[in-house]
């Protein structure tokens, strides 16, 4: 029996079919995203392309919070000012000059001469005013252009902006943004804000092209894209990749080096490894897995390719709201904070450190004294924690109800938290790792007495006082955490009360927060408000430091670890510096040198 001839025909057919299918696939399946991914043309200064990995997103409207808004900011749109490459100050962008009034409440920006959109039309101060009206529009959801929450940063403090946004006032003329003439834009603030210029580098403040956005076609698609950044959107295959091409109309086009940027869109939560990077498919990538970091650090070649921004993020825990009052006892919260094995938790990765404060230590002027206790971990701290727990009626953790640790995805850090609490305090904690939809609901739900504990999260952001004190762990967030079960129930009820007008609801919520929260939380909110009453920067910083310190003393939000931000970049990538803001760097600052190996 010969097997050979029998099988020839089916195989032949099958092979032919495969070839046909493959060639068909080749023509149409891959879209037009197959840009030239080869290196540059050898010239070190200009030309060439790079490929970067970014977290996937559904849209790129910078006015709604998604990962897309950060990518837009990296190269597709440019605001009035940009951050310096090290992220500590601002540099001119669309505006080349600006003045601040003496009382610190009026900022006047002068747009560059001859600045245009990528379609050649002039970019005017009116475009900015139109953009901000859209940003603050309380009805914006109904227009169907965006889905995420508004990315407007309330602490920016533009006069009447928040009231307009929540529907308390309805006339946009009362908002402190005005196009004085084609090239002059004026902001009026409700109080001096030292963080205002840095705040303008947040994606929500990027200009949008009114004609494109209001047009019939989808302005976020490459064929309809009108931007003002160094690059234009040339291709976008949803869930897979994006391609940027140099914008010849950009005001500083001659100083932009790279011709093309390829962006690989990686699904959030997907298994990511460094294989594509080490295989040369990706030039710049963020890495986070402790073992990967250790391996890169240990490798003499790979360690040279790491770019590290130290202590840029803080992981924290906040009590869940429950009818079980155990977390409302300040002794219990303090015991939990001091009993936390921060060193062991941070020991999991070489890129995390035990955190003594929520505030990142890279904020200029940060001191150890802001922390709630002199010793936030170690033997003495644990001893104090045990004492407090005993005081509260649970000696050695006896009789303490089982706690839940709620998280949106599983980290080894969660196990370490549970483990060290068990060892140090003798309490039982179970982790509740849930799918993200459940996580967001459970975080703010009112739980019954059997579900009591904390939720785990992390923040990172620019290292200025206003941002770290007002925006991250904001006064409202802290005061909400400080509400007891009854107060929180009132708060939730007021939020969904249909009979209240927008203005009344805001007032009712503020009333509940101000009267029912803990004294420290309210003091923190009042201190933050007080920073607005002075133009003296030194005095202002004093108040911020005090506010940050009160926030720690409240012990409503427990700092866990500080984490470094780690990027790896191929040796040919030049000019990369990592900033604390989530966009991390601008594409216009990069160039490639293929001789650098």
């Amino acid at each position: 029996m010969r097997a050979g001839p029998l099988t020839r025909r089916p195989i032949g057919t099958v092979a032919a079919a495969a070839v046909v299918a493959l060639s068909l696939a080749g023509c149409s399946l891959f879209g037009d995203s197959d840009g030239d991914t080869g290196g540059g043309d050898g010239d070190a200064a200009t030309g060439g392309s790079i490929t970067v990995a970014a977290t996937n997103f559904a849209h790129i409207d910078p006015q709604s919070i998604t990962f897309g808004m950060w990518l837009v900011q990296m190269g597709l749109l440019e605001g009035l000012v940009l951050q310096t490459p090290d992220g500590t100050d601002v540099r001119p962008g669309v505006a080349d000059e600006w003045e601040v009034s003496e009382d610190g409440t009026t900022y006047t920006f002068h747009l560059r001469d001859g600045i245009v959109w990528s379609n050649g039309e002039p970019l005017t101060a009116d475009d900015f005013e139109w953009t901000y009206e859209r940003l603050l529009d309380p009805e914006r959801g109904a227009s169907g252009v965006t889905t995420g929450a508004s990315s407007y940063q309330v602490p920016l403090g533009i006069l009447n902006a928040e009231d307009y946004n929540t529907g308390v006032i309805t006339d946009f003329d009362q908002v402190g943004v005005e196009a004085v003439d084609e090239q002059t834009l004026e902001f009026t603030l409700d109080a001096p804000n030292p963080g205002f210029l840095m705040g303008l580098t947040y994606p929500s403040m990027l200009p949008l092209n009114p004609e494109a956005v209001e047009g019939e076609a989808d302005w976020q698609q490459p064929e309809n894209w009108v931007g003002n950044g160094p690059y234009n959107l040339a291709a976008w295959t949803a869930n897979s990749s994006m391609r940027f091409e140099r914008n010849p109309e950009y005001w500083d086009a001659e100083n932009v080096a790279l011709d093309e940027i390829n962006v690989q869109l990686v699904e959030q939560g997907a298994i990511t490894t460094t294989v594509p990077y080490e295989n040369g498919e990706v030039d710049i990538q963020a890495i986070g897995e402790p073992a990967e970091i250790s391996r890169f650090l240990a490798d003499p070649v790979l360690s040279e390719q790491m770019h590290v921004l130290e202590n840029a993020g803080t992981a924290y825990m906040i009590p869940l709201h429950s009818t079980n009052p155990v977390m409302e006892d300040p002794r219990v919260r303090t015991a939990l904070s001091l009993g936390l094995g921060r060193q062991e938790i941070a020991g999991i990765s070489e890129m995390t450190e035990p955190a003594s404060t929520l505030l990142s230590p890279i904020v200029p002027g940060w001191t150890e004294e802001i922390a709630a206790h002199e010793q936030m971990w170690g033997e003495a701290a644990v001893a104090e924690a045990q004492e407090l727990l005993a005081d509260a009626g649970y000696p050695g953790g006896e009789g303490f109800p089982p706690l839940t640790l709620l998280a949106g995805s599983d980290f080894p850090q969660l196990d370490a938290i549970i483990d060290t609490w068990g060892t140090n305090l003798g309490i039982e904690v179970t982790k509740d790792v849930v799918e993200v939809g459940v996580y967001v609901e459970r975080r703010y739900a009112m739980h019954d007495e059997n579900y009591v504990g904390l939720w785990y999260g992390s923040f990172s952001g620019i290292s200025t006082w206003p941002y770290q004190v007002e925006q991250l762990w904001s006064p409202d967030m802290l005061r909400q955490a400080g509400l007891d079960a009854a107060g929180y129930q009132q708060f939730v009820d007021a939020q969904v009360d249909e009979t209240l007008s927008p203005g009344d609801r805001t007032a009712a919520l503020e009333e509940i927060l101000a009267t029912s929260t803990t004294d420290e939380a309210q003091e923190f909110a009042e201190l933050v408000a007080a920073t607005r009453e002075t133009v003296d920067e030194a005095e202002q910083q004093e108040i911020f430091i005090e506010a940050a310190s009160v926030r720690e003393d409240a012990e409503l939000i427990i700092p866990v670890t500080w984490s470094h931000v780690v990027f790896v970049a191929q040796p040919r990538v030049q000019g990369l510096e990592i900033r604390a803001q989530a966009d991390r760097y601008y594409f216009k600052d990069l160039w490639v040198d293929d001789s650098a190996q």
Partner: protein
Amino acid sequence: MAFISLWVVALLVLVAIFAPLVAPYGTQETDYGHQLAPIGSPGHLLGTDTLGRDILSRLVFGFRTALLVAFAAEVISVLVALVVGLLAGYRGGRADGILMAATDIMYAFPTYLFAVLLVTVFGRSFWSVMAAIAVAGWVTQARLIRAQVMTLKRRDYVEAARSMDAQGPTIAMRYILPNALGPLLVTTSFAVPAAITTEAGLSLLGLGISDMPSWGAMINEGVRYASSAPHMIISPAIAFAVTLLAFTWIGDGIRDAFDITSEARR
């Protein structure tokens, strides 16, 4: 093959039952000085994970979870399938119509879509993962039993019983059920590895069991560390493959034993 597999499975089941005795450490027992220790480290035969937890111990307990999920899901789906399948096959008519409709619906609802939705709704617990697997599985088995019953009920000895005034339930229980058990055993032995795979797959999508040690979670974590700490993927993957193979071969073996026609031909 089937015979060796039977021993392997027996051994694995023993390991799962006596997990606390077999595992050298507790699943949550951390060793902060010895994180990511490689295979063969003193005290940790298969190394440790990012928290210094013993991988061997976690594998043993993870297997316990996997078996528990698979068996619990199978017991539920087989019980439901038996009732429905026997009814549909023996009675025919409306019961049969309902079963066929259910089959169509479950067939049109891809298993993993259904599992994703169920776990999304009821949370990432042991029970919802188990339910997801059971719900997805019973229809196939019910159909199988129905088919068996339909062939068996025309056999002479059943006809004979019927002519002797035996009642429907009696016939079903005494004559048909024992004969339908063989194929059922086959599907069940194939369904156990399928359930383990499903659980691991859900873990990979971030929807697996989170409150117990699970192989899916271990593999998921291992994949992330594949290039930096390969020992974290190697032993779970091997254990996974051996278990799946053993169950598959047992299924093959049982099938051969029951498949008289093919037996006669060989």
